[in-house]
């Protein structure tokens, strides 16, 4: 092999090793903290794993904790419901926008996108007032999973709509027309033609909105108190005025990270396909 090419490859390899280390070292450090005893934690710091001394007691403590279980359940329900709801609504909106002649279509599209441009914190106070003020008897949106699901939906829809619009636009209109002539209704076209063909895009939309809802902290910490608290807000509860339980905090952090990492690893091929769908004429 040419020496120049060899050096170039070696340099590229070293670059990516460095980049991976930069990204993964904090995670590795968090893992080390989560498998050490409280006494070991304050000993001599080391990046190496001492297999003899490692312990799963932090994980056991966290997993057997009913509060943690509730937070985890809440996060799963909120993130999954949000992903499903956003994907379905965004697909319907993208289909309508792509296929039908709507008055002020371009302005509407831009307006939807502008909803995502303001920093979310701006809306915190009005949302808090809305969540606590709008009441149905004793029930209000404050501290409910449905409240969080609807709120995340508002923030995720513009992005999902923008992503799916491009994907639906790339599906030839003749396929809809062929299906109509074949006897299909608009709903049948949507379920049997558009949905299967937009699946890579829907996977991307679903995963990204799921991860957004799973990781969200600001609204979850402000608009929930006990019943609907999610795992990200739960993390903060390990930091108290009397001290911080670093071992359990790291264990919860690892458990919070795991589902998102797992989901992304499983569907990363779809994500690449979805983001490049329609980029070139098929």
């Amino acid at each position: 092999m040419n020496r120049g090419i060899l050096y170039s490859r070696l340099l590229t390899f070293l670059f990516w090793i460095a980049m991976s280390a930069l990204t993964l070292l904090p995670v590795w450090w968090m893992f080390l903290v989560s498998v050490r005893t409280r006494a070991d934690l304050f000993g001599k710091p080391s990046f190496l794993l001492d297999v003899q001394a490692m312990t799963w007691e932090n994980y056991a403590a966290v997993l057997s904790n009913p509060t943690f279980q509730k937070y985890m359940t809440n996060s799963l329900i909120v993130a999954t419901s949000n992903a499903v709801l956003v994907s379905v609504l965004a697909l319907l909106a993208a289909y309508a926008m792509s296929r039908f002649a709507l008055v002020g279509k371009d302005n509407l599209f831009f307006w939807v996108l502008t909803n995502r441009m303001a920093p979310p914190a701006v809306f915190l106070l009005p949302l808090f007032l809305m969540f606590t003020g709008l009441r149905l008897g004793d029930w209000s949106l404050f501290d409910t999973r449905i409240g969080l699901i609807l709120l995340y939906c508002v923030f995720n829809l513009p992005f999902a709509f923008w992503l799916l619009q491009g994907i639906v636009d790339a599906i030839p209109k003749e396929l809809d027309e062929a299906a109509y002539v074949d006897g299909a209704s608009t709903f049948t076209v949507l379920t049997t033609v558009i949905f299967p063909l937009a699946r890579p895009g829907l996977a991307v939309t679903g995963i990204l909105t799921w991860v957004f809802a799973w990781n969200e902290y600001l609204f979850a910490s402000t608009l929930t108190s006990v019943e609907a608290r999610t795992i990200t807000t739960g993390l903060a509860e390990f930091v108290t005025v009397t001290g911080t339980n670093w071992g359990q905090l790291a264990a919860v952090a690892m458990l919070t990270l795991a589902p998102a990492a797992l989901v992304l690893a499983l569907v990363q091929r779809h994500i690449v396909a979805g983001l490049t769908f329609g980029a070139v004429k098929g």
Partner: protein
Amino acid sequence: MSRVTLEAVGKSYGAVTVLKPLDLDIADGEFLVLLGPSGCGKSTTMRMIAGLEAITTGTLRFDGRDVTALHPRDRNVAMVFQNYALYPHMTVADNIGYPLKVARVGRAERLAQIEAAAKKVDLTPYLARYPRDLSGGQRQRVALARALVRSPGVFLLDEPLSNLDAKLRVAMRAEIKHLQRSLGVTMIYVTHDQIEAMTLADRVVLLNDGVIQQVGTPDEIYDNPGNLFVAGFIGSPPMNFVEGLGAGGRFAGPGVTDLPCPGTGKLTLGFRAEDTAIADTGRFSGTVYEVEPTGEATYVVLQMGPHRVNLRCDKKFRPDLGTTLRFDLGAGQALFFDTATGQRVR
């Protein structure tokens, strides 16, 4: 099978009229071809029949029933699109069976009908494949089978052969014609290729700028064109034109002498290359501009004043460039058109 009637059917987009109101009666079991150049309104007419475009004015009837406002799914038509519009995520069998699935036909019945339709177009070995694994001709056949499977009242084919290579196009043309004859279905076919129109149609509708120019059998359109557009559009090479003046029942133009004609004033003489015969005493003369042998014949391009005309001659005929040639036409083979209006003068 259905009889299709268009009563003053027109199409406008705002102030722009793309199809002037047209009347057309398509008989049950007829093979009708809508022919014309790009943008003439032929595809729009077909899409209105399918229900994919709203009809701006007029009434569309299938067997006397007003279907003007019906959704495409309620019209019982089948359509083959120019790019086939096969569902890429479905196998050939699922593509063919899609109209039946939508109509909630039972699985066993569906499979039997898929098999039968696939057999008609020789697709049986390919039922488990996806469209991406098929050649252009096979995809075309899948689109045909999907149209056949539900026994529709009207078949609509929108330039179905335009994406195929020349050899396959000829083969598929014969298959489509044979299929239509054997099934006896009403078929409406859109094309800009006059050879396709002439070979397939029972009747041809020639459109230009959203207006019907002529309706007739291929022979009528070829032999008796109603105006200059039709005369120039049909035939390969196209009809030869020589502009001149008609007076006292005689036509005079560059290279033309002593030719009887029906009208007076500015006239355009039209004649076909194959109707000419080289003759030393002929009434037409011109200088040889170019010689084009095609194997089966030799086409001689003659310069007659400002006009160039084609003569179809014997395959061995090779005149020298620049020499003067005389030729003549048989009785009734010279057609005359009003130069100003383009209309035929009889």
